[in-house]
């Protein structure tokens, strides 16, 4: 017997409002359709009505988890239009915060996944570590979210206590290596729950335009930090973890390995960071011009298009978030899966609906 089940927009299986309607044959999902827009805030419209200083603060609020990368990408676009080269030290400070943010994002996601899998102890361990990262981000920036580090031409604050950051990163690396990675690669419960579930083939990942860990778990070897380096990433050594299975387990493993790589990037950045200024001075206007800026956010490629006509406000601000690219892949992932696996499959995309709706 076939039937249709609406899930959401407000539902226990969903972290944020969003709707998925699944078509089932018995317990097997045969198709799905998605509906978004429940968090729509009109941020592009708003960004085109604020001056550029206000727009930095506004765009940092696109996402509550990866806030830094939004203001950073926006500033990168404006700096390119204005021909501003930011100081070396500012580049490294941006990298440190961006990688701490990635660690935070991946730990949060791994904790949510552990809870969905039914692994409460792991969930608590990971959330304890997440607190550690948030404490460090607070020590660096004064804020646990929306760090306000970016300005046009550099950063607002320095990393004053690099030893504190390095100690936290060492601890995270040790715990993730000792607990998270062995569990996700060898534990029978995790493997039974995640292997072969929610498979996204490489061909579907390309056709849907998947990005970040979702794409890398389907065998697509992409990472803008390596492929199109920005800031000082070109001077840092790191691997890009990749899996080929395309299932939930592959996405779990990719993110766990990425935490280790990000810890290494933070350590290198702290060691290589040269002395020098943090910014190039106050900039309130940018000349006429347009620019595309892309960076590797925790969830994948973040795309900004910015156009200026030289006035107080920008003539166009276009934001394509990684979740906007990744969430549609759920349609391909759920086909043929068990109805009961839908919450886990959706969570494995690490969707951010606020980012998606903007």
């Amino acid at each position, binding site marked *: 017997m076939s039937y249709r089940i609406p899930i959401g927009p407000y539902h226990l299986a969903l972290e944020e409002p969003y709707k998925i309607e699944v078509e089932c044959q018995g317990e097997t999902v045969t198709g799905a359709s998605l509906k978004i827009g429940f968090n729509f805030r009109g941020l592009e419209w708003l960004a085109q009505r604020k001056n550029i200083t206000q727009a930095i603060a506004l765009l940092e609020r696109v996402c509550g988890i990866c806030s830094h990368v939004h203001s950073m990408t926006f500033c990168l676009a404006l700096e390119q239009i204005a021909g501003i080269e930011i100081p070396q030290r500012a580049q490294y400070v941006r990298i440190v915060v961006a990688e701490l943010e990635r660690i935070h994002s991946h730990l949060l996601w791994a904790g949510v996944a552990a809870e969905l899998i039914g692994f409460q102890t792991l969930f608590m361990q990971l959330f304890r570590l997440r607190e550690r990262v948030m404490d460090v981000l607070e020590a660096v920036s004064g804020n646990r979210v929306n760090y306000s580090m970016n300005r046009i031409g550099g950063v607002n604050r320095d990393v004053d206590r690099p030893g504190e950051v390095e100690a936290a990163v060492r601890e995270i690396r040790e715990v993730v290596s000792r607990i998270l990675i062995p569990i996700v690669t060898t534990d029978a419960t995790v493997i039974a729950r995640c292997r072969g579930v929610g498979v996204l083939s490489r061909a579907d990942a390309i056709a849907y335009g998947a990005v970040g860990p979702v794409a890398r778990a389907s065998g697509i070897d992409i990472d803008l930090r390596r492929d199109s380096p920005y800031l000082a990433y070109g001077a840092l050594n790191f691997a890009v973890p990749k899996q080929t299975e395309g299932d939930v387990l592959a996405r779990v493993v990719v993110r766990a390995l990425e935490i280790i790589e990000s810890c290494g990037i933070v350590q290198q950045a702290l060691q290589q960071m040269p002395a020098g200024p943090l910014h190039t001075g106050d900039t309130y206007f940018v000349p006429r011009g347009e620019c595309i800026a892309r960076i590797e956010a925790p969830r994948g490629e973040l795309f900004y*298009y910015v156009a200026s006509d030289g006035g107080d406000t920008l003539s166009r601000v276009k934001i394509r978030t990684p979740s906007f690219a990744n969430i549609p892949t759920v349609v391909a992932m759920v086909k043929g899966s068990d109805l009961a696996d839908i919450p886990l499959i959706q969570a494995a995309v690490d969707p951010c609906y606020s980012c998606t709706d903007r």
Partner: protein
Amino acid sequence: MLDGGARFSALVTRQLPAGGLWLSWHWDFTGTLLSIETTLAVGDLAPSIVDLYPGADWAEREAHDYYAVSFANRFSTPPLVLREGDTPGILLNREANRS
């Protein structure tokens, strides 16, 4: 491009000062951005690429929500972030269109 592994990245739409629309499609190919752009009068049909790239569906629906762009060869273009029945084109400068 699909066979070569180029991944659809984004569709950017912008209103031109004269009132027409500028559309730019972007693909990522191993870190390099490949772009195709065109200009349209408001109300003209843009080509749809959803049959090749299903990932472009939301991008096209968003362009319809924001700039009322209609796409050829689409069965329908339901709102993405707007509600059913809302007037599309929320980023259009309607004064410019009237002049």
